């Protein structure tokens, strides 16, 4: 959807994805836990909800945008091997004909 805009690089690498997931789970869980205790002590359940939502906003800010920290371990792809160039749009018969033509030319 956003790929066409291409102002940003929208993707994280695999290590970055792992870190991002771990980060937002930790933040939201901790906020919820602290909020539960605070709300229980202060007898106000809205504190619990509010603190969890604050955790949501913080973790959304930290993990949703593709910050450069999450792009430090790019995949090491194999180098492109030199392969014979094959015309993609040709059928097998057309390909054979082409070959014949080439042979004739060389003769």
């Amino acid at each position, binding site marked *: 959807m956003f790929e066409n805009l291409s102002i940003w690089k929208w993707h994280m690498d695999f290590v970055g994805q792992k870190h*991002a997931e771990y980060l937002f789970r930790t933040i939201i869980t901790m906020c919820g836990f602290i909020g539960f205790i605070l709300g229980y002590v202060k007898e106000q359940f809205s504190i619990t909800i509010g603190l969890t939502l604050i955790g949501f906003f913080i973790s959304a800010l930290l993990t949703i945008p593709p910050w450069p920290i999450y792009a430090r371990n790019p995949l090491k792809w194999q180098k492109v091997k030199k392969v014979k160039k094959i015309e993609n749009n040709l059928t097998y018969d057309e390909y054979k004909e082409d070959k014949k033509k080439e042979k004739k030319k060389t003769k």
Partner: protein
Amino acid sequence: MHSLLSRGNSVLAYTLSVLVTLTFACFLSTILVDYRTGTEMQTLKIEVKNLPEYGVSKKINDLGHITFNLDTDLTSLFNWNVKQLFVYMTAEYETPTNTLNQVILWDKIILRGENSNLRLKNMRTKYYFWDDGNGLRGNKNVTLTLSYNIIPNVGRLPIVGAIGSHTFSFPSQYTR
């Protein structure tokens, strides 16, 4: 987690799961609370009239008229899972035609943070004390009870009866 939208989706879904868990934990934390409290009631003026209730029919029915004192402290009922209380006072009595009559005479909504220590003196009833016949005159056993409906943030909506009641009798003469 690879794209912006899928990351947003994961964060939001996880937040909602945490919220549901916390809410359920809140419900569990108050499941064993005993919400009964004591109450004291007195009646001051007791009259019974014999009037037609034109809104219903031209039949002449008994209309009770009482004023009451109510002493009850509901502050202890409020915990983090109580949003508001609906307090109501019921009169219960028996007539020859019905074994159980219940009339709600007075009610009050107490929101969280409002004064819930009720010290009411010489209160008039909020609703008419109509009987569906002539069962009030000379009735020796009319019992006032206080109940409240607890509206929580999450969980059940229990209706609890307060401990304590007040029994009074109506005079055997109609007031004109």
